[in-house]
């Protein structure tokens, strides 16, 4: 029907940051797809050079507003490894809790505020009618519970000041802890409905996909082996050797391939590769939904995120109810030359930091690979496939389908540099 046409989306909405997209179809063939991350570079890689190691985790936290805790935690881990610091068991537990708070808040923002409007055929959560208003209440309560959990542990949900190299400056207050446990228990009941919505949702985009994720023994996003759906198992410190950086000339961020091929990181990858490690309460209550995995339907990334919210709630309640946090001796840091790698699972996928320090503890170089950059090539290839499969449909339909698919990936352009404009040229 449309032998020749173009689509240009200038600013994609309901994603984190700025990006645009150009699609060009000639003689019934998709000739060109350009996903341009138009977020402006802020040159963090350059800015951290020469800075004292103690200040850097809090600085890189500013790379991303929504997942600042992931950047902070991953960079902290890399610095600790470079200096041979081993954080205490309690510090690791606090980190897990702080990460869970972020995951709950960030996934809830994406699912309720960015994706639900697509499910209900509305432009925005601001247009929801009376019937959907209850879900808006849920949205803000769930987000708040995550926010309050991160605040309890880190002092603030965005750029948390208590989280430091080797330790936390402050321990959770007992009364506040009780309140947060109650909040988590209350919002847990809302997650059943959220999971069901994304299970019942008929959106589908299926394609052979290679998945990569850090698989952790308690699904806590912090420490483990990196696994891929092709059967690779990789130590954190060797991850970089399996990645291939691809310069995308029209984008302000680079893309990555894994073992020379496009791949996907994020909640769907984690669910496909590591779901047996979810919290026992989550597994007990959501068996029907867990049977959907492994899945190659990109929209199941949203179902996976909803299940992850439940896991984060369950594991947080368990830790908070069973741990008596005690003041610990200050960590002694011996400054020395060294290199360290930190790998964690951020909300949107595997996050990699390599930090190299000189003998005075100044940063020689830092290298980081963020989840959206790893998904970028696959997103572009998927858009190409999506357009090819729908050439008989009208342009408006195709454009909306593209936006929906990109949203399902939950990209973060702020991280990748920052969102999407489609320009059909």
């Amino acid at each position: 029907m449309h032998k020749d046409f173009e689509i240009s989306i200038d600013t994609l909405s309901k994603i984190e940051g700025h990006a645009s997209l150009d699609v060009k179809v000639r003689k019934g063939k998709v000739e060109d797809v350009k996903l341009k991350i138009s977020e402006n570079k802020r040159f963090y890689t350059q800015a951290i050079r020469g800075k004292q190691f103690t200040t850097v985790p809090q600085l890189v936290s500013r790379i991303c507003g929504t997942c600042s805790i992931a950047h902070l935690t991953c960079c902290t881990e890399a610095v600790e490894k470079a200096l041979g610091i081993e954080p205490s068991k309690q510090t690791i537990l606090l980190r897990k809790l702080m990460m869970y708070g972020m995951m709950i808040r960030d996934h809830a923002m994406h699912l309720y505020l960015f994706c639900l409007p697509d499910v209900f055929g509305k432009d925005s959560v601001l247009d929801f009618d009376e019937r959907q208003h209850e879900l808006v209440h849920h949205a803000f309560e769930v987000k708040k519970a995550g926010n309050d959990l991160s605040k309890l542990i880190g002092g603030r949900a965005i750029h948390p000041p208590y989280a430091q190299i080797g330790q936390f400056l402050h321990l959770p207050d007992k009364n506040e802890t009780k309140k947060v446990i109650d909040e988590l228990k209350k919002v847990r009941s809302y997650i059943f409905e959220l999971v069901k919505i994304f299970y019942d949702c008929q959106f589908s985009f299926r394609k052979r996909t290679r998945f990569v994720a850090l698989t952790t023994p308690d699904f806590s996003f912090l420490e483990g082996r990196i696994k891929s759906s092709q059967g690779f198992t990789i130590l954190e410190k060797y991850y970089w050797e399996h990645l291939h950086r691809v310069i995308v000339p029209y984008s302000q961020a680079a893309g990555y391939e894994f073992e020379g091929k496009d791949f996907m990181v994020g909640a769907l990858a984690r669910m496909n590769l590591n779901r047996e490690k979810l919290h026992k309460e989550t597994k007990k209550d959501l068996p029907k939904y867990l049977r959907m995995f492994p899945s190659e339907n990109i929209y199941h990334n949203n179902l996976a995120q909803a299940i992850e919210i439940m896991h984060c709630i369950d594991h947080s309640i368990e830790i908070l109810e069973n741990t008596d946090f005690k003041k610990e001796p200050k960590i002694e840091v011996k400054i020395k030359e060294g290199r360290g790698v930190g790998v964690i699972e951020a909300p949107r996928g595997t996050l990699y930091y390599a930090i190299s320090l000189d003998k005075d503890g100044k940063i020689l170089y830092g290298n980081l690979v963020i989840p959206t950059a790893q998904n970028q090539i696959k997103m572009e290839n998927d858009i190409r496939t999506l357009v090819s499969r729908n050439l008989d449909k009208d342009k408006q339909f195709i454009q909306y389908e593209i936006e929906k698919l990109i949203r399902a990936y939950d990209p973060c352009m702020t991280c990748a540099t920052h969102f999407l404009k489609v320009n059909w040229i």
Partner: protein
Amino acid sequence: MKKLKVGLFSFTSDEGCSMIFLELMNDHFFEWEKLIDFKYFKLLKSKSELKDLDIAFVEGAISTFKEEKKLKEIRKKSKKLVAIGSCAVNGSPSNQRNFFSEDTRNEIKIILDKFGHRDKVSALNEIVKVDGYVPGCPMNENKFLEVLNKYLKEFRVV
């Protein structure tokens, strides 16, 4: 009933202030729904319109010529313009390239030229008139509420 016509704009930054705004919505959404008409808010809606705004809340510093142009357009179409967060208020930390050594500047020059970056990253008030400030990284929540409530009264919405 009259509503305050508000736009939220994001320039070079980590969007942490937008995130704080979404967190403030946890407690204020149902109150603001009655008082505020979000005309421009890319994070929450596709159909955003830059026209006749009462207040533009602007996050981020200005790094490119395109951003500079857009900021001037926002200024023209808004009665009040409020800088939110440290990047918008004083440029930092998004302006860190302003302080790079010559070597590092040379290293990044190719990117700056290719994507239309200005020589320096600027705070909003270096380019347009700014009516209000909410400092902090991320922005201070109480100060934001104070500024918003002031304008709700000033525009006779409450």
